[in-house]
């Protein structure tokens, strides 16, 4: 049986990645995910895990090594952050196009410049359209759980896609939390050995990464899009199975005190935990406020979102990244688009918060929720604001 321990979340992510028995780990440490590859390197060096740990010279090489290793049928794991993730970007759509289930933990961090090592979501938002399944953890327990779930989702024959697990840099990576750490037997029971769809092997030559000319490219992209859309069913199945074995429930969009809520806040990542406290306070004050927390970012849970906002008068989306010169934050833009055709929908507005590690406190969420609740009519140019910016 697993036991409840206090552990830094990055170390816990490494421990649990090792419990998933990866064959190949290739990573290049970059703040704030550093402790994950460092600790995995220790685990391999100590002989606790029989895996190949490839010390690469860059993130581009890390993801390329994982891509190649996964092509041979190995279970692979990597981790990165910010500039490192951007350096991987060239390879990310290739991994998903090849349908290789590389699993990656991203310790989300702001993208330079100015140079900043602290947390926001700008790194993953640049990778939004690379064709990876994308999960967001709100705390240490979810991080640990999602690493195991990710292998099972990505390796499923109906999915065969890489999966990234987003954990907020520092707010999660460097925080010690109580975590129920499953033991090896429990992980083995949940996650069977990887049976690859195809393997590169000299005895049975085949091609991965063939040329795709205009005659075939449309069809190839359609097939890839379909794979990602269809993966949602597997995500839901894996989460159901998880709940059955481990007793912890996962949903694409988690609702917190949304019963009768007129004002909804929506967060993604660790700030949901702070927002929950704000909602408790607001409810005490008699404000009918609730919270939605996105856990599944790709494939985007359209249906679940439309259901979750039913009955709300106004919805404030909290973004952790800016789409410069665009229609608001990336999460907001998607949600507005998802609700556009709904005959009855809440007014939507957007707060871009916590950029580059700027702290967002309970009082801030209360302030934003109250402002949201008072929103009557919005001009398009008032739809989003960078919250707390000094003027």
């Amino acid at each position, binding site marked *: 049986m697993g036991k409840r321990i206090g552990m830094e979340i990055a170390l816990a992510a490494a421990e649990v990645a090792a419990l998933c028995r990866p064959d190949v780990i290739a990573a290049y440490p970059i703040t704030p995910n550093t402790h994950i590859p460092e600790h995995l390197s220790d685990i391999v060096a100590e002989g606790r895990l029989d895996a190949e740990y490839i010390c690469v010279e860059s993130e581009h090489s890390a993801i390329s090594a994982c891509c190649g290793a996964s092509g041979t049928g190995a279970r692979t794991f990597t981790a990165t952050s910010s500039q490192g993730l951007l350096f991987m970007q060239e390879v990310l759509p290739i991994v998903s196009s*090849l*349908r290789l289930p590389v699993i990656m933990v991203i310790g989300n961090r702001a993208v330079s410049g100015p140079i900043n090592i602290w947390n926001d979501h700008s790194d993953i938002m640049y990778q939004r359209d690379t064709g990876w399944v994308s999960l967001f953890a709100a705390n240490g327990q979810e991080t640990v759980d999602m690493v195991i779930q990710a292998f099972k989702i990505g390796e499923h024959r109906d999915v065969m896609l890489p999966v990234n697990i987003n954990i907020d840099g520092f707010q999660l990576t460097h925080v010690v939390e109580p975590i129920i750490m499953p033991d090896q037997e429990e992980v083995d029971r949940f996650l069977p050995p990887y049976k690859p769809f*195809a393997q590169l092997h000299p005895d049975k030559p*085949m*091609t991965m990464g063939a040329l795709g000319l205009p005659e*075939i490219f449309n*069809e*190839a992209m*359609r097939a890839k899009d379909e794979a990602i859309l269809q993966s949602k069913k597997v995500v839901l199945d894996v989460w159901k199975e998880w709940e059955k074995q481990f007793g912890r429930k996962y949903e694409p969009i988690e609702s917190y005190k949304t019963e009768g809520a007129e004002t909804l806040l929506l967060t993604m990542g660790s700030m949901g935990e702070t927002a929950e406290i704000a909602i408790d306070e607001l409810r005490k004050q008699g404000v009918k406020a609730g919270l939605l927390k996105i856990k599944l970012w790709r494939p985007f849970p359209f249906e679940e979102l439309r259901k979750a906002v039913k009955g709300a008068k106004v919805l404030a989306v909290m973004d952790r990244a800016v789409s410069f010169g665009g229609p608001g934050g990336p999460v907001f833009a998607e949600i507005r688009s998802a609700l556009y055709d709904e005959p009855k929908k809440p007014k939507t507005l957007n707060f871009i918060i916590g950029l580059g590690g700027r702290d967002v406190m309970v009082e801030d969420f209360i302030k934003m929720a109250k402002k949201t609740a008072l929103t009557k009519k919005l001009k398009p140019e008032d739809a989003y604001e960078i919250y707390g910016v000094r003027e």
Partner: protein
Amino acid sequence: MTEKKWPETWQEVNPGCMVFRPGSASEYHTGSWRAKRPIWDNAKCIKCGVCYIYCPEGCITENADGFFEANMDYCKGCGICAYECWPKAIVMVNEED
């Protein structure tokens, strides 16, 4: 795994566009890209084989008489053979001529 030579619909695309039959690239005739074709003047050819060595497509072969010729299924008409041929035994002519 049954191999599809050329997927017509998106449903027929192999996962990851994987190709399970080795050597299938030879079925793709790149000769259709060609705008110019190489013509050998064997009176000038000294059978040195420079054209064979330089052909990036590997489509030039030596025939029974020791002269060289290109396989037009694959020759893209790049003209490197003609450029490298120092006795000037190869000229490139327009396909439509």
